[in-house]
């Protein structure tokens, strides 16, 4: 334990430590000399291309892919063009940028995935330099050509090439450049000698870093921090300028006293860092530069490269893999020599406790008196997270657990989660896996992504183990891993469909939320249609099976699956698809075997295609429905002949359907229609009279028990009407209707409206007893009471007179 601080170096207010992560497992003859190397962040894989300049077909360069611990994952001869730059995407794919502007994408195991080009204009002038960068939008590529033009693609999965404007006065390659992501846009920062420019999609703007030392005449190197927030510039005068990436603020400037341009430079910060610091590397010399004049200097044994991380810098050389970082505050508090921080005291207390010494109590009291025990526990837990050594982690966690015993109400999550996280981290940091994640990085990348990474490396058992250990919900964890495993399995060409399908179903079993359709799609993409169909059988969501089945032209199967799902819309979709695919006969036959689809299609036809509906009934010999169909059709006809013809067809169908009642009723309807027509055509007045008498809405006058409506005379008609509001309009409609056949019209000038009440009034006025009596005799019980009364009174007065 005393040695924890052995590798600490002070710089300004903070300490820096360089810890060994791995002794590299690879066996490189010449170390990293004459190699093109790319290591992915977050402890990702390393790609190595030896002697990239070799062009002769007889001696091609070798491309090798290693884990961060140097375990070989793939190795193959590079047969394509000259590679300018290697890089990794966010999902662990390798990008090889060739000098002709083509970018080839390989997976972790060196199998070719796809390629794209950075533009046609690159061909002639060739790529001089290229950079791969990561932004919230994915992985991007930026290149500069021999013609000094920059081209940028922000996201290679959604490729949009942006040719950036020209940089004034730039000939050939720039001295140095970097990609920034600002204001949701990727930009390029270029230095040409002493001039600095920002290139965005539309313009090239000259910029000046505030407070840059005047001795400098040229900016020879630059680097942007992991978060794109900070920028460091190295000038030919040996100064390092550090500031914000928007060039608005200067953080510090340090003189290194080294004038030759560095090989590499990287920011070495961590979240909540105490000071900005940059690591600069020359051939055999590494320098950490912070705010003050002091620097930390390391000697390098071998050719190395720097891999910037969000909380430090990894240094890889031919034999070792190290992590250089600012010592986190909690570790510093605890381990700093003579620290009196609560965490340090707790650790001490626990040590004494294990020695069974009463001093443990003294230390504990000291912390408790200050009321800092909770803080002490927290510090220990946190510090444990930042330590690489399992032993140190254990010591700290034991101390924390010891301290916890003296606290009530201390939330247990912090401790429990840290223990779990560390267990996972230690597992993936293992030499065989080789993902040297720090706790900070792990929290940033999330378990989900870590699982994905493991899956990309085909470390399925470990991934499943982690999911189970962390109790990740099945559909996010185990199921997802199994799905990837299965997708990988279907690509194994040497095994038969049968075997693969069985293995997969056995392994996946009833695992929750497995999308078999995705696996099947993968199989189909690999050209294994039969396997895809077999796999689809396992898919519980019928709905999901349908689109793929349609794509594979298994429309019949798609139809039955759609029906199984119960989703009628899906059934309709397949039916429409089938209708366009098949000839009519086959289509109908298919439907016939699927009653559900058939009745849905009938519904569709009822609204959209009446004729098809008839054909469908015909095919099924459904005479009853055909009869109904004709009846419905008959009502749409305006001409009698057509209507009767339809009804005749209906009669025939009803007879075939052995529905005697319907056939007979229809025949009667036909007879009735013909009879009515005949009456209408005779142009006689009688049919009109019958119609008027039959009409329910034309109300006559009731005298005694009979209702009088109409009287026919040689050339006049008299109507007797009551309820005039409804009777008259209906009468007029009826007359007009009959008039269309007979030619009879109402002669308005000769028609008279006789008002019965008016007639009575007139008689009363004249006081004519005889007249009044006549009218009274015509009155029935339905006549207005008041009128009868008035008539009676008038009659008696007239009689007196």
């Amino acid at each position, binding site marked *: 334990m005393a040695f924890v601080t052995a590798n600490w170096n002070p710089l300004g207010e903070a300490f820096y430590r360089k810890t060994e992560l791995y002794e590299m497992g690879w066996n490189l003859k010449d170390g990293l000399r004459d190699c093109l190397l790319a290591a992915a962040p977050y402890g990702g894989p390393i790609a190595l291309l030896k002697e990239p300049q070799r062009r002769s077909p007889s001696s091609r360069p070798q491309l090798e892919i290693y884990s961060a611990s140097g375990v070989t994952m793939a190795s193959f001869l590079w047969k394509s063009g000259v590679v300018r730059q290697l890089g990794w995407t966010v999902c662990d794919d390798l990008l090889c940028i060739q000098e002709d502007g083509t970018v080839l994408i390989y997976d972790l195991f060196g199998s070719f995935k796809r390629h794209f080009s950075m533009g046609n204009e690159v061909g002639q002038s060739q790529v001089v330099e290229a950079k791969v960068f990561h932004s919230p939008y994915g992985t991007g590529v930026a290149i500069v050509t021999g013609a000094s033009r920059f081209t940028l693609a922000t996201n290679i999965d959604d490729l949009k090439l942006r040719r950036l404007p020209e940089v004034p006065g730039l000939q050939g390659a720039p001295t140095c450049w970097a990609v920034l992501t600002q204001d949701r846009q990727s930009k390029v920062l270029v230095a040409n000698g002493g001039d600095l420019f920002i290139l965005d999609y539309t313009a090239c703007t000259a910029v000046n870093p505030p407070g840059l030392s005047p001795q400098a005449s040229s900016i020879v190197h630059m680097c942007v921090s992991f978060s794109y927030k900070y920028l460091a510039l190295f000038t030919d005068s040996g100064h390092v300028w550090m500031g914000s990436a928007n060039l608005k603020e200067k953080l510090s400037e340090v003189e290194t006293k080294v004038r030759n341009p560095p090989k590499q430079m990287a920011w070495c910060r961590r979240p909540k860092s105490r000071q900005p610091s940059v690591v600069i590397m020359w051939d055999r010399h590494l320098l950490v530069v912070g705010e003050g004049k002091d620097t930390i200097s390391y000697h390098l044994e071998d050719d190395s490269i720097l891999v910037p991380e969000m909380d430090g810098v990894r240094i890889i050389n031919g034999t070792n893999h190290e992590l250089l970082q600012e010592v986190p505050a909690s570790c510093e508090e605890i381990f700093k020599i003579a620290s009196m921080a609560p965490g340090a005291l707790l650790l001490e207390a626990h040590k004494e406790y294990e020695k069974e010494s009463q001093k443990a109590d003294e230390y504990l009291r000291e912390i408790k008196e200050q009321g800092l025990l909770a803080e002490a526990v927290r510090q220990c837990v946190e510090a444990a997270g930042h330590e690489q050594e399992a032993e140190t982690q254990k010591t700290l966690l034991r101390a924390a657990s010891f301290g916890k015993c003296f606290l009530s109400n201390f939330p247990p999550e912090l401790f429990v989660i840290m223990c779990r996280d560390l267990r996972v981290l230690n597992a993936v940091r293992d030499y065989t896996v080789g993902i040297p994640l720090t706790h900070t990085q792990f929290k940033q990348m999330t378990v989900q992504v870590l699982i994905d990474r493991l899956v990309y490396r085909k470390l399925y058992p470990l991934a499943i183990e982690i999911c189970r250990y962390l109790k990740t919900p099945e559909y996010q964890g185990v199921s997802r891993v199994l799905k990837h495993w299965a997708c990988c399995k279907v690509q194994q060409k040497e095994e038969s469909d049968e075997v693969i399908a069985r293995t997969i179903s056995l392994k996946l079993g009833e695992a929750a939320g497995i999308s078999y359709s995705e696996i099947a799609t993968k199989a189909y993409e690999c050209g294994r249609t039969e396997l895809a169909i077999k796999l689809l059988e396992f898919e*519980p969501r019928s709905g999901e099976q349908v689109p793929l089945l349609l794509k594979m032209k298994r429309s019949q199967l798609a139809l039955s699956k759609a029906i199984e799902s119960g989703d009628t819309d899906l059934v309709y979709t397949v039916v429409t698809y089938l209708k366009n695919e098949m000839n009519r006969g086959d289509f109908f036959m298919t439907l016939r075997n699927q009653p559900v689809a058939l009745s849905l299609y009938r519904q569709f036809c009822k609204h959209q295609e009446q004729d098809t509906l008839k054909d469908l009934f015909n095919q099924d010999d459904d005479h009853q429905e055909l009869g109904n169909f004709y009846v419905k059709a008959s009502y*749409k006809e305006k001409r009698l002949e057509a209507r009767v013809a339809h009804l005749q067809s209906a009669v025939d169908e009803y007879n075939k359907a052995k529905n005697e009642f319907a056939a007979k*009723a229809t025949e009667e309807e036909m007879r009735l229609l013909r009879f009515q027509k005949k009456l209408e055509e005779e142009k006689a007045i009688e049919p009109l009279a019958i119609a008027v008498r039959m009409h329910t809405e034309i109300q006559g006058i009731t005298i005694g028990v009979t209702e009088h409506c109409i009287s026919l005379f040689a050339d006049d008609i008299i109507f007797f009407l009551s309820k005039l509001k409804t009777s008259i309009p209906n009468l007029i409609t009826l007359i007009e209707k009959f008039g269309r056949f007979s030619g009879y019209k109402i002669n308005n000038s000769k028609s008279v409206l006789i008002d019965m009440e008016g007639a009575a009034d007139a008689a009363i006025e004249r006081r004519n007893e005889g007249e009044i009596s006549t009218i009274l005799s015509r009155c029935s019980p339905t006549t207005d009471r008041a009128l009868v009364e008035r008539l009676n009174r008038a009659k008696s007065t007239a009689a007196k007179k």
Partner: protein
Amino acid sequence: MAAHLSYGRVNLNILREAARKELREFLDKCAGSKAIVWDEYLTGPFGLIAQYSLLKEHEVEKMFTLKAGRVPSADVKNIIFFVRPRLELMDIIAENVMSEDKLQPPREFHILFVPRRSLLCEQRLKEQGVLNSFTNIDEYILDLIPYDGDLLSMESESAFRECYLENDQTSLYHTAKGLMTLQALYGTIPQIFGKGECARHVANMMLRMKREFAGSQNQILPVFDTLLLLDRNVDLLTPLATQLTYEGLIDEIYGITNGYVKLPPEKFAQKKPGEGGKDLPTEPKKLQLNSAEELYAEIRDKNFNAVGAALSKKAKIISAAFEERHNAKTVGEIKQFVSQLPHMQAARNSLANHTSIAELIKDITTSEDFFENLTVEQEFMTGVDTDKVNTYIEDSIAQKDPLIKILRLVCMQSVCNNGLKQKVLDHYKREILQTYGYEHLLTLNNLEKVGLLKPQLTTRNNYPTIRKTLKLWMEDANEQNPNDISYVYSGYAPLSVRLTQLLARPGWRSIEEVLKMLPGPHFEERQQLPTGLHKKRQQGENRTTLVFFLGGVTYAEIAALRFLSQMEDGGTEYVIATTKLLNGTSWIKSLMDRPEAQIL
């Protein structure tokens, strides 16, 4: 505003709130002012979810009805179509979009499919060349709409017709989906019972969907213990009978749609002294009916014969409450009295309304025609002369009474006789065609297809057996203080509810024989609950059963289930869900086919 939804055994307001949240989210997706173009059919159901005020809060400025031609001009940024996924509606929308005025500033179009988006419709829009004109195409999953504290409805008018007549199971798919949504909110329902083909189909889909979503196990303690799925065609008789509860009669006579009833205005005229009866309102009076109204909640499920007494009792209570003011001596007492005034006035208004409604109904129920009709219905239900031509029906046809009334009676006779003798059936059919017109041939055909009318194929009539075993007829139904569900039809106990009652106690095993006589399979399924979600029942705690009527339910059946819930030793409380609330009239109407005759 929708507090009455949360009073029940199950807080249905959660469902309503979930629906409202989703609506708000969609509206916010379309930034800026908007106009909604409504599929007219949807306005009613939507009213149960959100009032205009909610839409207004989200910048909905105008509302139109979807019709052919051009969308009326409105100075808004977005036009949103709220539509059912129907092809004919897509054509109208396409026309709307294409005739959009090119000169006006462009408006953004959106479609919200209710209850589900459809590939078929999108395909149609694509064929019409307008699919790309839409900024958002979304779905608003509105399957089960909270209707009252213990009632959910899908408000799908044509569900019965589609399922049983046209063999289109779309609404069953929506039912299954709706039940999944319900389970997501209220926990997995451990037991599923069912009777009928459609019930089987829905249960199958639910179990399948559960497997599909197996990953996303929900961790909610189940609120419902049991789900009972019942096909309407298991019990065709009940909706045909005239409902005799207060709410049932309101529905029979005036029709309740989406929770509202329209009543003749005369009885509701404000009688102000000196004005006389001159300007009677001509607009029908629209009233909302739900358990939010205390008095209504109290009397809705009573037999109508018991409503009068309940109303007069209430009247006494209210006037006594108003009399209290004379006893109020101190300022404090007066203040307390005044604070109760709004509540009392509301109670008085409510009493006045329901007294008027009761009077309106009484006019009808005391009529001779109503009585005769009811007598015939009860004869049929008790099995009197169901095999002969009924003279009352003949007379009614001769008098050309409303066709639906005739159809209800004929169907009822057929159901109670397990089909009519061919001769009797043909006689009725001929009479109907000759009196009401030949076009009704299609309607009669439909009724035969769904089994409401049928020729008797075997001489065995199993209805009496069913009636006796299930005790469907109770001779001494107590209308005032009921002791059995038969009070809702003054003697007839609805079959569907009897099945529900027997399921709870003693279980269906005791009636296997009868179940076999009813159409469709009966079944039981269990859904595994994640460990730790098994309910530990308190002593005396009631079970909760969700009864789902596929194809519709009547108010009287609901009343009967509520009665069962309230029974002291019942042990089970019921929540009711259905595709649509119906009565015999609206039900038969949905099965009618009326070709529009062209004038010759």
